[in-house]
């Protein structure tokens, strides 16, 4: 009982500290993780097994961590090292691509293809944002896309905010389509043993349908405003040359090839048996070998704080799991839904979406995974259906508010630093209805396909 109370207190304190943003979130999660080990596992439970299971260091030394010949299995509780290693590898690759000028080149090339016309740029950038975010973290996608959008908006004499808002939304949506697009999906995939193909054929389909609707929605919201801009009515002759974006031609070619290899390995990982941990490590190693001069800089630029945040987070969630708190929550959800799977899906989808609109969706998803595992085991609901529900709820819900997802924060920040502040009212006026619309589409898709 004491262990459960302490675990809940530590978890709530961690969540509150993350929300208030006063202390950096990796310090919060690591501090709370340490408290969980000392107070809950050590002092209350006297369980060395709980500590070793949660730290999960032994997983590195298993073959399954790097290669899974058969069907991928559910991993044990605790720190999900596969997620950490994969994200680390992708961070190094993306850093290399950004340094070589890949993203800026791609944005300018696509803008050039549509002859720098405001509305076509608006639509193609939405699609590009979604497609890139399927493979690359949405922060990086928005960071580059928003910067180029601001640059083009200055030339096209239009307000960049409609474009940036639509790009943010599509990045979050694109991220939901694949296993590697959004951290909750990586955690869900690696924890529950789902492959890239599983995601694309389930969440990917829902994201694809939603993307079409969202493009129409944002077009209807903003086309008059964009069409009325000065740039839409006059011929602009001077545009930035995409070639100027490439800082190092050799690095550009190699980073593009590495990106293609990463996509290929991810798409085929269920067939090849290579795990995401292996793919992440392999991608990082070939990036560093191919750019030896920049290797130290690339390693230095890795966002270690995010990785440490994940480690602390997994320990705290592991504490909730080991003390049985998450099983209690699962049984509560099971009770209020009366073992009705459709109602359970609706509850998980909408609660995930609403919670993710206000709090970080990563801790939320990490907490919910053991809950849906328990629900599937005790209520007889198909685990994969709950997994896709959780994935869409957490990934999409974050789009509703300026603080719901990392891409929103970065996009808004880039815009307001250039003098285009985004208020909560303005953001939610367009993004909240779009979020509700997409969550509804997902609910209908899940009901139509799995029930």
């Amino acid at each position, binding site marked *: 009982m004491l262990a459960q109370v302490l675990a809940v207190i530590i978890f709530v304190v961690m969540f509150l500290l993350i929300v208030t943003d006063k202390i950096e979130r990796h310090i919060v999660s690591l501090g709370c993780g340490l408290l969980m080990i000392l107070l809950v596992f050590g002092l209350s439970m006297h369980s060395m097994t709980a500590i070793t299971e949660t730290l999960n260091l032994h997983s590195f030394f298993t073959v399954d961590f790097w290669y899974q010949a058969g069907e991928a299995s559910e991993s044990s509780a605790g720190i999900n090292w596969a997620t950490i290693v994969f994200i680390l590898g992708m961070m190094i690759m993306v850093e290399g691509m950004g340094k070589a000028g890949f993203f800026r080149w791609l944005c300018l090339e696509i803008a050039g293809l549509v002859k720098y016309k405001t509305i076509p740029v608006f639509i193609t950038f939405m699609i590009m944002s979604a497609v890139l975010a399927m493979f690359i973290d949405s922060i990086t996608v928005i960071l580059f896309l928003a910067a180029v959008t601001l640059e083009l908006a200055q030339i096209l004499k239009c307000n960049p905010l409609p474009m940036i808002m639509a790009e943010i939304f599509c990045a979050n949506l694109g991220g939901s389509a694949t296993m590697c697009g959004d951290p909750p999906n990586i955690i869900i995939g690696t924890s529950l043993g789902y492959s890239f193909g599983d995601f694309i054929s389930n969440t990917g389909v829902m994201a694809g349908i939603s993307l079409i609707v969202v493009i129409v929605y944002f077009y209807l919201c903003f086309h008059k405003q964009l069409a009325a801009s000065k740039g839409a009515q006059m011929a602009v002759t001077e545009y930035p040359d995409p070639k100027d974006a490439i800082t190092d031609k050799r690095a550009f070619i190699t980073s593009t090839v590495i990106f293609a290899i990463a996509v290929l390995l991810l798409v085929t990982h269920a067939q090849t048996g290579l795990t995401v941990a292996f793919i992440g490590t392999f991608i990082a190693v070939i990036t560093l070998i191919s750019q030896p001069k920049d290797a130290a800089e690339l390693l230095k630029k890795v966002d270690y704080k995010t990785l440490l945040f994940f480690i602390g987070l997994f320990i705290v969630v592991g504490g909730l799991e080991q003390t049985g708190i998450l099983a209690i929550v699962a049984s509560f959800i099971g009770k209020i839904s009366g073992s009705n799977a459709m109602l359970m899906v609706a509850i998980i989808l909408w609660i995930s979406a609403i919670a993710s609109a206000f709090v970080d969706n990563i801790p939320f998803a990490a907490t919910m995974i053991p809950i849906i595992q328990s629900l599937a085991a005790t209520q007889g609901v198909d685990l994969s259906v709950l997994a896709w529900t959780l994935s869409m709820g957490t990934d999409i819900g974050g789009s509703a508010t300026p*603080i719901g997802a990392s891409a929103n924060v970065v996009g808004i920040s880039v815009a307001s630093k250039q003098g285009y*502040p985004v208020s909560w009212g303005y953001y939610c006026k367009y993004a909240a209805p779009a979020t509700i619309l997409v969550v509804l589409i997902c609910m209908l898709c899940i009901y139509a396909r799995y029930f």
Partner: protein
Amino acid sequence: MSEQLIISIGREFGSGGHVIAEKLAARFGLALYDHNLLDEIAQEKELDAETLKKYDEVPRNMVFSRTVKGFSSSSEENIAHMQFDFLKRKAAAGESFVVVGRCAETMLKDYNGLISIFVLGDIPVKTARVMEVYGLREKEARFKMERHDRHRKMYHNYYCKGKWGDSRNYDLSINSSRLGIERTVDFLESYIKERQK
């Protein structure tokens, strides 16, 4: 003292700090930067100044904003940094000016030409002034003063290590209620001239 002269004026609401800053700017023939700073930024970047002014000296809302990898979703924070950068650029270009608020005593502390002043006042005197200037009743005036000072304190203390109004943070803290606005300006003028010698 360097030839460059930057006078930063922090102030309590109702203390007359802004009027004092205007008068000092006039006496020393210097440009005055207050909320007009955003007009200059807007002109420079072809932006709408009125939109930017909604976020001028507004503290960051800690619950409704988030920071990711050093990027903040708070427009208040981003606009504040635009103003800090603008002031730093002006100072780095060797310009002399008077600046009201905007954490200038901290942002420009590395410049030898900086003279940082904080203007405070007695509550009854400040209340009377706010009642007169804004045509308010006493209760309303006190409420307005408290609200503005609370916001200024939150705004300042978020960006600076030194606390808002703490005398250790400024070259000079002066109670304008003692001498009145005009004589406070006289006193400050002589102090600044003394510093320039």
